[in-house]
Structure formats: structure tokens, C-alpha cells
């Protein structure tokens, strides 16, 4: 599959944007300036950037919590995301939700329900709608390696496969679910083996290579879009921070981190760009400056934004409010 230079540069831009945004969030967390905890995709950004960028405008993403790249690519601005972390009224959810618990149908992004793998059946349903209506749209749903142990993973995968629905299931296999290593999570070598139970084709890709993830996703979307049914894509990577910033992750062997540090997705892409003459240092620095500025502006926006009003919390329960609802 060919990939245009401009797409490569965009992938790089989003990779950097995701990295720098989450790095900033991490600092802010340690400064006590954001509200609540901080979960990041640090070191694994290529996954959400790759599968997110391969989606088309009318497609949908049903992400999980290490998918910051998807939010940004779909068009949810860094400003709104930063404000979300600050618990501000201008945040994606107006303060109703925090951090990565984001969704916005205007940008084709389903909300992430914390309960892992819940978005697998939910995504399957969107794909079912596309199929019923004869639309050439696809949806990508993502979860972690731990999430694949949940019943909803099973039920979503099975249903999608039986009905050959236009959905692509992504798995961020970062070797740990919180402190739980893969070997206590499943008795198989590759998460992709799970797909065998559904007669679903699967692929294993280097989750630290945004281009590879992008290509694999794009290919799978094309198949799904054309009636070929779902694909499961396992993206192998390594979680480089703790589960969240409050977790020092002592349970992870140092060597493993050392090894994967060398495979950092940003470095990887920069090396690829140099070797293939896609872009030189200067151009990349230019992108980085743009990213830095965007994050600075986002932070300023978040800082300056007002907090929600206490009574805002009473609004929005129903989409169809009850006639003359009796608030007593």
C-alpha cells in the first residue's frame, strides 16, 4: 500500500501532538494542576494515531482510554481536551466527565465507558446499523490486552463475525493490564489467537510503528467497507509508564523498558523519515514547534476557562426530558 508524503507528515504531527499533550498532562498532574488521575498512552501512541488516521470522515471510532491520538485526529481540539483535564466548562464534556472519558458524535467518536471492552459490542452495533442501511462506513473499536478477557469482548467479536459487519477490532497489547502480566491474563502467545474462536481474520502488527498500524487498519477498513467483514488487529507494544501516573510500575522488569525505549514510536518514525528522505530535521522541528505552540495555547485556554456551575450537574440526564418534569 502506498502512502502519500503528506499523510506521513500528518501521522508524524499527530504522533507528536499526542506525545506532547500527554507529557504535558503528566507534568500538570504532578504539579497537582489537573483534576483526578492521569492515564497516558506514552510510548504506544502509534496505535491510536495509526488506526485513527486510517479512518475516513464518516467512519466512527469507539476508543478506549489510551487512544488520545484518535480524539485529536477526529477533530476534538487539544484545547477542549486540556480543559477537560482541568475540569472546566469548556472541556469536551463540560466538566461532566474527566480526562480521557471523552466522546463527541460531531466528530464520530463514541464515548469511552471505563468498563473495558464494553465498546466492542457497542461498536458492533454501529457496524450493524451501517450494514442495515447499506452505508459504506466502518467503525474501529479498541481495547487493551486485559480487556480481551471480558465477556463483552467475546460477545461483540462473535456477533460481528457471524453477521460479517463492517467493524475492525483493535487491541493495544502493551503486555500489562495494570500490574497483571499477559501470562496471568491468557494462556496464549498472541492475543490475535483469540480471533480464531470467531472465525475472524487477524493481523499482528508492530504497535510502535504508526505507518504499519495505519496500513493494516486501512486495509482492514477497506475489506470491512466492501462487505468482507471484521478483522482483529493486535498491535504489539509496551506500556512505558505505570498504569497511571500514580503507579511506579515496580512490577515491570527494567530490561523490558530499556528494550522498548529503543523502539519508541516517535524515534522510529523520525528514523524512517530520515532514511527514506521523507523529511529532514528542519521540517520535523517545524512540526514540533507547531505542536508545542498548540499545547501551550491549549493549556492557556484551559487555565482561563471558567469552571462549570454547580447546578450544571443537574442538566442533561435525558435527551427527551419528561414533559413538565417535576423537580421536587
Amino acid at each position: 500500500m502506498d502512502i502519500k508524503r503528506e499523510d506521513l507528515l500528518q501521522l508524524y504531527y499527530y504522533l507528536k501532538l499526542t506525545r506532547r499533550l500527554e507529557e504535558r498532562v503528566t507534568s500538570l498532574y504532578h504539579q497537582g494542576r489537573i483534576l483526578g488521575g492521569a492515564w497516558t498512552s506514552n510510548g504506544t501512541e502509534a496505535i491510536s494515531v495509526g488506526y485513527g488516521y486510517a479512518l475516513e470522515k464518516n467512519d466512527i471510532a469507539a476508543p478506549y482510554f489510551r487512544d488520545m491520538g484518535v480524539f485529536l485526529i477526529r477533530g476534538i481540539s487539544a484545547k477542549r481536551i486540556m480543559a477537560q483535564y482541568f475540569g472546566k466548562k469548556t472541556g469536551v464534556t463540560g466538566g461532566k466527565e474527566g480526562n480521557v472519558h471523552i466522546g463527541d458524535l460531531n466528530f464520530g467518536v463514541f464515548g469511552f465507558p471505563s468498563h473495558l471492552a464494553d465498546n466492542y459490542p457497542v461498536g458492533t452495533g454501529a457496524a450493524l446499523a451501517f450494514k442495515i442501511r447499506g452505508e459504506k462506513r466502518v467503525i474501529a473499536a479498541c481495547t487493551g490486552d486485559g480487556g480481551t478477557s471480558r465477556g463483552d469482548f467475546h460477545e461483540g467479536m462473535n456477533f460481528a463475525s457471524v453477521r460479517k459487519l463492517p467493524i475492525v477490532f483493535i487491541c493495544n497489547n502493551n503486555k500489562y493490564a495494570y500490574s497483571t502480566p499477559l501470562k496471568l491474563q491468557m494462556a496464549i502467545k498472541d492475543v490475535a489467537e483469540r480471533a480464531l474462536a470467531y472465525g475472524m481474520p487477524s493481523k499482528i502488527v508492530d504497535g510502535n510503528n504508526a505507518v504499519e498500524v495505519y496500513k493494516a487498519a486501512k486495509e482492514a477498513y477497506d475489506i470491512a467497507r466492501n462487505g468482507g467483514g471484521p478483522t482483529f488487529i493486535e498491535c504489539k507494544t509496551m506500556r512505558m509508564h505505570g498504569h497511571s501516573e500514580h503507579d511506579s510500575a515496580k512490577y515491570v522488569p527494567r530490561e523490558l523498558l530499556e528494550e522498548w525505549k529503543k523502539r519508541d514510536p516517535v524515534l522510529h518514525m523520525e528514523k524512517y523519515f530520515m532514511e527514506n528522505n521523507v523529511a529532514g530535521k528542519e521540517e520535523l522541528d517545524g512540526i514540533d514547534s507547531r505542536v508545542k505552540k498548540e499545547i501551550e495555547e491549549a493549556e492557556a485556554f484551559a487555565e482561563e476557562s471558567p469552571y462549570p456551575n454547580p447546578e450544571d450537574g443537574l442538566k442533561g440526564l435525558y435527551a427527551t426530558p419528561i414533559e413538565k418534569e417535576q423537580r421536587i
Partner: protein
Amino acid sequence: MKEITYLDAIKEAMDEEMARDTSVFILGEDVGVYGGAFRVTEGLSDKYGEWRVLDTPLSESGFTGAAIGAALVGMRPIVEMQFADFISCAFDQLVNVAAKNHYRWGGATPIVVRAPYGGNIHGGAFHSQCIEGFFFNIPGLKIVAPSTAYDAKGLLKASIRDNDPVIYCEHKYLYRRIKDTVPEEDYVVPIGKARIALEGTDVSVITYGAMVHTALEASQLLKQKGISCEIIDLRTILPLDKKAIFNTVKKTNKVVVLHEQTKTGGVGAEVSALINEYCFDYLDGPVIRVAAPDTPVPYSAQMEEAFIPQGKDVVSAIEKLMRY
């Protein structure tokens, strides 16, 4: 006007809504060719095809989750639980995804979950449960429970057109046992509005579902003893029609709350608490609850009859209250 069964009312509502709006579709176990375990969807798959009356794998969480996803992109799915009892398997999707989508991030989730519930059919603990208690403390859901064919049709149409997740409790004991008249033309029964099933002056029985008929039976017996009952059929359980409840309390000053659901933590507790909180000065006696005892639904005929509130239980509660 025409007379139809409760079951046909449900089927007609689906049929008419599917004809009216192509975004409406049905999914669940055996709803297609077979027409559902209770034959509520019979014939619809012939009419609308296997993609709009869709047999799913045996996976309540999976197909409820799928309904949610379809709803988020503009469909109006009707999920059939084969028995309401199996909704327990979809609890997480309903409570954490469907109920919270709109509040959390603005995602409207217009799904209807049809739950054939209730006892009196010798079904035992797994085929007789009242499941409204599973969801009654969950903000974001709506729960309706019709007691007549008229309401069954009108409430189902309203539920389908509603933009929120609605748990539609259809009492399977009523399916073929009751019949009443419905208009030929399109109508809805609005969600959130109770009705007065019987006007009366001495005592109010606040109830819903199959128990409305039990209350009516009791009212006949009481009439002979000179006691005039007002029966309120809640129709919508979540959110409750507080105005209708308070109006009847203010009128009769004496209240019995009746439900088939087990007593502790039931809908009756909320009704009683609301009355206590807002109509305390109007009460001429305690709000008495008549409800199933706190056990699973027993199987054998003798035990099940003792479990499910009967007309005589309502009569004796009211007689006790009248002596107050």
C-alpha cells in the same frame, strides 16, 4: 376502535413503528423466523426481512451493547429479552453505557428493551422475576410497565420515539389474558404520565402492571362493603408521575401501594417515601405496601400463589387501613 390482546398491542406497535420509520428494528434471540419465545414478533421478519428482525447469538450483553451502538448512529433498536430475567446479563451495558451516555458526553441512546416479566406462570426464580428493581435506582433510564392493551401499544410507540433508553416491562401473564380497545389511528401514551384506572373516594391503590387487575378485582369486593377505591396505574415507573400520586393522596388521604415486585427496595418504597415527604399532612393513616415477600419467586403452585399478591391481600390491607 378494535379489541386486541395485550400481546397483539405490542406487536402492532412494533409493526406500525417499523413501517413508519426505517430506523426501527428488532434484535434478540429467536425473534426472526421463530417469532420470539412468546410469539410477540411473529410475522414481522416476513414483513421486514432478517436484517430488521434480527436473530442474535445467545448474548444479552452483546446484543444490548449492539443496540446502544446502533442507536448512537441514528437507529431505534428494540431489544427483546427472551425472558426479562436474562436482562441481568446486559446490566452493565444498560447501567453504565446506555443510562450514562447522554449525561456524560451527550450521546443520545434511543433504545427500547422489551422485558417479558412477572410470575403466575409456574416459571420459578429464573422465568418470573420483576426486574424493575434492578434499574430503579439508575438515573438515565426510563422504565414503563403497561397494564392494558391500549397502554401497551401507546407506551411502546412512545418508547420507540423517545430519545432515551427505555426498559419496557411487558407482563407476560397478561399477553393473551387481557383484551381491550385501541384506536385505529396512531396514538401514543406519553412516558411519565400515570392514569386513573378507577375513580374513587375512600382509599387510593397505587400500582402498575398485572397488579392493576388485582386491584380492580379487590375494588369490586370492597365496593360491596361500601368502600370506594381509586386506582392509580403508574404506567411509567421511572420517572414517577409525582403529580398524579400526590393528587390521589390529597383526594382520599389513604394509600395502599401494590406491586408484584418483592417488597424491600421496591417501587412502593419510593412511592411511600414521596408521599411521606410531600403529602404528610394529607395522610389519614400509614401508607401500606402490599408486595411479594423478600424471596426469589418459588416454583410450586402453592408457594407461588402465596408469593404473588392476591385480591384478598389488597382487601385486607385496605380494611385494616380503613379502620385506622
